[in-house]
């Protein structure tokens, strides 16, 4: 049974549709991400759930109750903003206490809950500081504590980690996930960072141009993208044009000079199709053993792996190879490119908007 339910939620600003027919079910305790590029409608959706933006159409149900027309201050939803939106004139503890004050929670209980929550986010020693005296990561935690202290049925995170530097962001991802599991609050996060969405969420909602494109578990969204948009937005990929050709009465795929069998060629609408092969599913070999032949144009060292750009008849290919401590292939070398049959995905062209 779903805890938060969006029913064909739509928001129009004049002629432009910011969010179109968003339908989504989120179970209790689930961590779901809205993932998409800027302007895809993810923030608008979040703002409608929070009650800051009035939907043009559709309904929002929380725990079976229609909250579509409820005021933001009646919904009791906890929100962490991208800018953290801390109250600069209040100390950390006063920030955290604010929601309890509004609920007229008795002093001793509110005191206990504030210190519990600050301990949860690891800030129990900084209660008397002002936000301006804290680092970005600490402010982030205050914002989280302030939202969690009211024990909200639903936690909304609006690009919560985008203002942190890369190293800190990774640590906070792990911590955010731990805290969410510990508290068990149903959580909806908005992000444009696919790695953040993949690593934190139980399910990812990929959005583009105001529409939901795919709702899936992170692994499936990455491995079985619905269309060209998802495959290129969630992770890196090689998007390649291929043709369906006939070989000995059998339909096959032709990619550059390579013709190969593909199990599900039946039912394809057109002869020209889009393929996706992830860079880590391609292998480099000598020119006699590759399915495609190409030449190394660029080579980048990325620490734990190498990124190659290969020119081939099928187009430019990105290939990542794990770093095993030695380097055999250099720029300008002729190489063969090889892949396993199950690495290939046939994609639909994106068709919405």
């Amino acid at each position: 049974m779903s805890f938060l339910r969006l029913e064909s939620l739509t928001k129009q600003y004049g002629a432009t549709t910011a969010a179109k027919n968003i339908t989504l079910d989120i179970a209790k305790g689930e961590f779901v991400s809205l993932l998409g590029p800027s302007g895809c409608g993810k923030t608008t959706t979040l703002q409608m759930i929070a009650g800051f933006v009035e939907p043009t159409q559709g309904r929002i149900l929380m725990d079976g109750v229609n909250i579509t027309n409820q005021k933001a201050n009646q919904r009791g939803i906890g929100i962490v903003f991208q800018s953290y939106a801390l109250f600069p004139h209040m100390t950390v503890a006063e920030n955290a206490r604010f929601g309890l004050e509004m609920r007229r929670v008795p002093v001793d209980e509110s005191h206990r809950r504030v210190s519990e929550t600050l301990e949860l986010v690891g800030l129990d020693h900084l209660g008397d500081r002002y936000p301006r005296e804290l680092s970005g990561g600490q402010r982030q935690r205050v914002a989280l504590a302030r939202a969690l202290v009211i024990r909200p049925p639903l936690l909304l995170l609006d690009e919560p980690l985008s203002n942190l530097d890369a190293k800190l962001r990774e640590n906070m991802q792990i911590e955010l996930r731990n805290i969410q599991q510990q508290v068990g609050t149903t959580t909806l996060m908005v992000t444009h960072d696919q790695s953040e969405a993949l690593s934190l969420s139980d399910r990812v909602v990929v959005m583009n141009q105001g529409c939901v494109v795919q709702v899936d578990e992170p692994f499936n969204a990455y491995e079985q993208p619905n269309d060209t948009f998802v495959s290129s937005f969630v992770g890196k990929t090689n998007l390649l044009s291929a043709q369906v050709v006939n070989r000995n009465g059998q339909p096959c795929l032709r990619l550059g000079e390579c013709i190969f069998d593909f199990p599900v060629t039946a039912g394809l609408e057109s002869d020209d199709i889009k393929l996706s092969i992830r860079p880590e599913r391609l292998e480099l070999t000598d020119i006699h053993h590759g399915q495609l032949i190409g030449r190394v144009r660029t080579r980048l060292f990325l620490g734990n792996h190498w990124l190659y750009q290969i020119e081939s008849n099928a187009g430019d290919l990105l290939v990542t190879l794990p770093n095993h401590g030695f380097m055999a292939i250099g720029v300008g070398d002729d190489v063969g490119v090889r892949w396993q049959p199950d690495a290939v995905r046939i994609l639909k062209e994106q068709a919405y908007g």
Partner: protein
Amino acid sequence: MQRNGKFALLFHSLFVVFLLAPLVVVVLVAFTPNGYLSYPTSGLSLRWFKAILDNPAFIRAFWNSMYLGIAAATISAVLAIPAALAIVRYQFRGRDGLVSLFLSPLMIPHVVLGVAFLSFFSRIGIYGSFPALVAAHVIIIMPYTMRLVMASVFGMDRSAEQAALSLGSSQWTVFRRVTLPMILPGVAGGWVLAFTTSFDELSMTIFVASPSTTTLPVQMYNHIAHTIDPLIASVSTVLIVITALFMVVLDRLYGLDKVLIGKG
């Protein structure tokens, strides 16, 4: 750390000297024992400071100016807050017109305003009263308060208000507990600037004030129109000292840059 070049340093020094030298001269002249404005003087004397006490008109005028400045600055700040919130945050018909209206007193010569207020106040029969003076001052100091309050409203992160809403505050509580404290530096800066402008204003007030509501600048002007004696210097010195003390206290309590520039 040497941030200024030699030329810049020279320029700054000259600038500061040029700014402070007249004040120094006034202070020195105030200690003259003579009956006329002169420097260097033949000795040091507190004669002209005692003379202030013998001129209750000056003391009355000082308090008039204080009350007037406090009342006008406070009223203008109270009016500027909702006005700035509306103008900065909402698009509505006549918005630009309203901004121009609020800022227009800056562009009209105060003498012209003074004449206009004089005839207007006489016509409706409140000429020379304290409320009339306050009203006139509110109008001329409004641009200063508006500018600073608008700047602070503009610079405020609105998601803090959304956060307060989501935590269960009513709109009024959001304003009282979040919006107002967050724009307060701008409001305070506007208030101080408005107060100073009001306290200092002569060319319009001279038309609007009556003998019972004479302000300090008007009193001083009237005084030197008749006699030029060092009394004017000693009154000025007292004002300079009061202002300096006020600035020191303000800086200690809040930090001057915070109040005057509205720095968070």
